[in-house]
């Protein structure tokens, strides 16, 4: 496993000015190995989404840096950042953000288009269990099905890192477990590094690496040697 695949160093970020200034990240440090399933855990306001956005290159830190394979994001201009996201990242959000007038297959193709080495769209659809729905439009799908499409769109790129921002936040228990299993499969099947933001403590048991955040700093940075499959999670 590549050691310092992703390195976060002295990362600081605040919002607002003067009295209204709020430090969201206050010097954060950790590294993630390639192919690791890493969970960022913490309550609301702990800075986990901000951290994810900075790693994803859609937000910038006030100080410190993020580097991927030794390339610092802060050295990249907007064009390079776009290419970075295009080549290396897949995104899954709590809200699925699908394109309403494209069907399931086409929404997944939107991701495939961006990649030089995309996975087979049909295969991804099958993996996600969407074969019966591939010509349906997002508004004809349940929340869980929409999130599967959203994962499909991210995974089909065959990204180095799959960024998941509360992917189960809007889903029920059963569906959440299905989605987590899918993400787990992507990790094992395609070797993608997963960085998942969640406030659901139970999810840490399926991760290789658990980073607990509170008030903008890393409180715990643990390697989980006894991870269990998503299907066995309980909460």
């Amino acid at each position: 496993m590549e050691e310092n695949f992703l390195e976060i160093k002295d990362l600081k970020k605040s919002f607002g000015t003067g009295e209204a200034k709020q430090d969201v990240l206050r010097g954060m440090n950790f590294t993630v190995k390639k192919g690791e399933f890493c969970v960022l855990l913490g309550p609301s306001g702990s800075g986990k989404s901000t951290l994810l956005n900075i790693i994803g290159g859609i937000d910038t830190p006030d100080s410190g840096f993020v580097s991927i394979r030794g390339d610092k994001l802060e050295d990249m201009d907007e064009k390079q950042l776009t290419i970075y996201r295009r080549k290396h990242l897949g995104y899954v959000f709590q809200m699925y953000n699908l394109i309403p007038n494209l069907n399931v297959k086409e929404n997944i193709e939107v991701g495939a288009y961006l990649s030089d080495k995309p996975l087979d769209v049909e295969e991804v659809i099958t993996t996600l269990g969407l074969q019966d729905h591939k010509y349906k439009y997002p508004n004809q799908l349940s929340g869980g099905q929409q999130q599967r499409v959203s994962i499909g769109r991210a995974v089909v790129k065959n990204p180095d890192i799959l960024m998941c921002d509360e992917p189960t936040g809007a889903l029920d228990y059963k569906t959440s477990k299905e989605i987590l299993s899918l993400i787990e499969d992507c990790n094992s099947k395609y070797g993608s590094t997963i960085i998942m933001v969640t406030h659901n403590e139970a999810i840490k048991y399926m991760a290789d690496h658990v980073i607990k955040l509170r008030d903008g700093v890393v409180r715990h940075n643990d390697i989980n040697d006894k991870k269990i499959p998503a299907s066995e999670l309980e909460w």
Partner: protein
Amino acid sequence: MRNPLIKRIPKELASDWHKYLVIILFMVGMIGVISGMYVGRESMVSAINAGKTELNLEDGCFELSHRATPELLENISSGKKADVRQYFIDKGFEEADKEVADAVEKELNEQVKKAIEDGVRAQCTAMGITDEDVISGYIDVAMEENFDTALEEARKSDEFKEAVDEAYSEAHDAVIEAVDEEWNDISEEYKLNDDNFRPVTVTIYEHFYRNESEDNNNDGVEDATVRIFKSDSEIDLASFVEGRAPESKNEIAIDRNHADTVGVKIGDKITVGGKEYEVVGLLSYVNYLTMHESNTDLMFDAFGFDVAMLTPEAFNELTSRLHYNYSFLYDVKPDGKVAQADYSENFLKALITQTLVDDNEIKDYLPTYLSQARNFAPSDIEGDSVGTAIFCYILIAVIAFIFAITISNTIDKEASVIGTLRASGYSKGELIVHYMSMPVIVTLAGAAIGNALGYTVFRDMAVKLYFNTYSLPLPEVVWSPSALVKTTVIPLLLMFFINLFVIVKKLQLSPLKFLRHDLTKSRRTKARRIPAWSFLSRFRLRVLFQNMPNYAVLIFGVILSELMLCFGFGIVDSLENYGNRAPEMIFAEYQYMLMGYKDEDGNVIVTDEKSAERFSCTNLLYPKEKTSMREGMGSGGDESVTIYGISDGSAYVDLAPDIPEGHVYISSAFGNKFYIKNGDVITLHEEYENKSYEFTVDGIVDYEGGIAVFMDNESFNRTFDKKDDEFSGYFSRNEITDIDEQDIATVITAEDISKVTTQLMHSVGEFMNIFKYAMIVLAAALIYLLAKIIIERNEHSISMVKILGFKNGEIGSLYIVPTAIVVTFFTVISLGIGYFMMIWIFHEFLMQMDGYFAFYMRPVSMVLSVVYLLLGYAFVSVIDFIRIKKIPMDVALKNAD
């Protein structure tokens, strides 16, 4: 792999098809109209130009008082000037010699008689004979016997020869002196001794015609004057729009435009010169594109004048005066307008001198480049389309803005998707291309369909419009690259850049901002405090504030619509107003323009009419600033100004007494058109000579009938090197009956002015009425698109208030009433804006033309233009209400992220 986002486009089109249909129809209409105008114009101009060679258009024509001899025609063809001086001298010598010979003969007879008588008397005295009777008897006998011999001897004497030679010499000297004096005057007047004279050789064709009375409904009343040419003419041929040339002597072909105007069709019978003919053809003569009877006519008259073709046999049977008209073609064509003028002047010198030495007389001379009947239509057609195009581009720009706002709304709606795509690695450029593709596709579709219609339906409409006005040949469709640029490239660029600007600006935000739906660049401004009105009123006010940018575009649309309505109503009103005011637009009830101030015999033309007053006039040009709107104008550029020389204390034009030299009055039309005030200095110049005049404006004469300058007659004659007693015509309150018609060039009465408007109303009136209603539909379509945006933007809120329990009626009152208030208020305001803008636009438009008349709208038209727009809006709000009713409640729930 093709960008999968492309697949959205047809779906987007299908899902919002009614909006795109309206937009595409709009584009198709606009582009079709411009394309049709350009293609129609270019086809027409090309047909007109093709006629020049195909139909053997003359380079000019002249009319003689009687038929020319073959020698005369040959001499004129040579282009050489005749030696008029020598002709006069030879003629003078001939007469003088005859007179001298007669006088000498008479004197010699007397002298010989006297010598014989004296001889007889001397002999009688020597012989002592004193009886007078006897002496007389001897004298008679002597005369009889010796007179002839004596006469012969006397003739042989040196003394006699000397005396005779002297008499001849004296007489010849007197002739030369008289001729030279006369010649100097003539050569000066016609500039016959011009050193720059170059002979212009021409080929001459007989092109005789007769003017006959035409009774086109056979009721015994003359309806028009018809000018008839023979069907075997070799020059100035006709193209047949319908039917054929006459083949038998009871058949006639008449002008197509005249026939349309007065309602004559093929197969109808008309009476010409008292004889009945069957109309077998409708034609367009290459040299009569407009029905100008005389080149000095203010306006052509398709009602009262016609040109026609008869077989030579039928032509010869007519009884009216034969006009010995000859057409000519230059053997080498002149290049350019100045060369045309030069050729024409040189040819005229040959014509004048050759005709003179042949004892013929010129009745009329007209080079084709100055012929109104030939040139009025092409120059008008060329000038037409610029205004229309600019107008259409403004509309396309408005559509582009509507598109941009729609897309901007879509971007707002799809913010999280855009954020996700950007976060996933889609570049800004890819998204810009994606959102740009819809307006570009719609514009391309509009341009394709519009151009297709432009080359077919709209072209035919444009051609029909010109056909209504002018007598033109049937055009063939001409491929026009400039039309393609103006109808496809310009709209596409407008659409492209306006949308690009808005979309690029909109997509500047970071992906994160899109994900957070935080689409304002700046921090939110402080919440507006609003008065403590009822809840519903405050709600409406909030709706109004929230949609300010949309209302701004809506207001612009309303202003534009109202402007279009002002245009539709105003043009018709202005023409009618001009027609009604025609009687005020003439100085005198009768204005006689004379051929010259002297008649054939060289006497100054006078009249006993008490109210008659002399005036002078000439034409100069006033330079117009070149603007893009004036591109391609046929009038040649500068404004034609009539300069009047007015008699002192004139009863017709009110000028201050003793205007200093170089100071003038101008007509109010001149002042209004070029914003000239008292004290301004204007510079006028000759058309073909490099000569200009500067005048200071001392006052303005209230005269809307033309672009004119007034000065006193004496200054006029001095300024333009005229003789002291020279003048151009008479103003008169009553008809002048004691001036020979041959000496009158033209008479202008109030009827001639109203003829202009009658003809214009016939040409454009019908079109304008259609235009007016098209504008109402257009205005309603504009408001429809803009009101739709406002509802769409508020879809979420409307859905939400539905969930809260508001009834459709209440929601309608919340979201439609603010729009209604805005539309009503701004419709009234826009009437004012539209009205004043039209005054300005009309002024700018007239800057392209010669002449001026003011924009006018009747009060009832103003009211109607507001009412029509509001009716259009009422219709749209019904659709809006239906739209509101259809918004489902789950819109608010689904997007609750």
